[in-house]
């Protein structure tokens, strides 16, 4: 019984289920996905619309197994994240010609190529350039995204309180999800 349930929960989403789920999304859900897509594609070669379409395709391919009990919005955000991550990893399709998570996780310790480094460097530079003139935001981005600092560390570094920091992070995220900002840097 448990085995059958697990199998059902891990089954691939069908085209019909995905279409119903898309129709059931609210305008805010959909615009939120667009904002997330814009923020995620920084430093990648994908456009936000491409990322959204690609994520639907990957979800239907079943390349990423996700429990059906999970909310569609959460699932789609996860797939979008995975697509961007794969795009950065698989800069050269000859390395692994698939978006399959299992195959990707089997790519054994591929040495960082100059292009890999370029991808993450481009991400860092594009994000920091976006906040040029706002030193606080740049310091927060650097620590939060690229130095993996804790909230406590960030508060100490910036001198901000927890609430002020949260508010600043929220503003940063909103700017990252805005259209057209820093398009030339991509």
């Amino acid at each position, binding site marked *: 019984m448990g085995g059958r349930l697990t199998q059902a929960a891990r089954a691939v989403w069908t085209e019909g289920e995905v279409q119903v789920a898309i129709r059931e999304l609210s305008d805010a859900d959909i615009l939120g996905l667009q904002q997330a897509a814009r923020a995620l594609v920084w430093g990648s070669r994908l456009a936000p619309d491409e990322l959204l379409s690609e994520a639907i395709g990957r979800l239907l391919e079943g390349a990423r197994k996700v429990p059906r009990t999970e909310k569609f919005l959460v699932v789609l955000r996860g797939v979008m994240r995975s697509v961007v991550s794969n795009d950065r990893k698989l800069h050269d399709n000859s390395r692994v010609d698939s978006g399959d998570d299992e195959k990707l*996780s089997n790519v054994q310790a591929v040495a960082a190529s100059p292009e890999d480094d370029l991808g993450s460097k481009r*991400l860092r530079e594009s994000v920091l350039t976006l906040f040029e003139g706002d030193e606080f935001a740049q310091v927060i981005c650097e620590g939060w995204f690229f130095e993996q600092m804790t909230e406590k560390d960030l508060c100490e570094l910036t001198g901000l309180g927890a609430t002020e920091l949260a508010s600043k992070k929220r503003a940063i995220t909103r700017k990252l999800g805005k259209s057209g900002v820093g398009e030339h840097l991509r």
Partner: protein
Amino acid sequence: MTKNKGQMDAENYADKVIAEMSALTDKEIMDAAAEDHADPQAEAARLRKLLLEAAVKHGRGRLEAAKARIADEDARQGQTGAVILSFEAKRAKFDRIIARNPGLTLAARQGERMDEAELDGYLADLAELGIAEPDDQNGA
């Protein structure tokens, strides 16, 4: 898999962005959308259409791939020219092969007592040895 610092940075960035974006309220999302689009509802409709089209396109691709697979299987089956024979036809075929190959006396004697499965096995063995009816060799 070993990740380099760049990959870890990119994944950490994506995790943080997703977590923060997921925490936005509908009002915050709509306010941000209003700054970007003159008509956020129209933009939402465009995006919904884009997502639905992506699903349909993928479904169509899957259907075409399935059709191509079936056509490929049909073509391969046609190439093998497999023909299903009745027991009587197999028996007759066996007899004809034996008649054309007088050296196979033991096979001829055993053939009298063979059931269908044994006959299948024997015909397969003969085919493997290159002993077949002229029609078989022509692929008929």
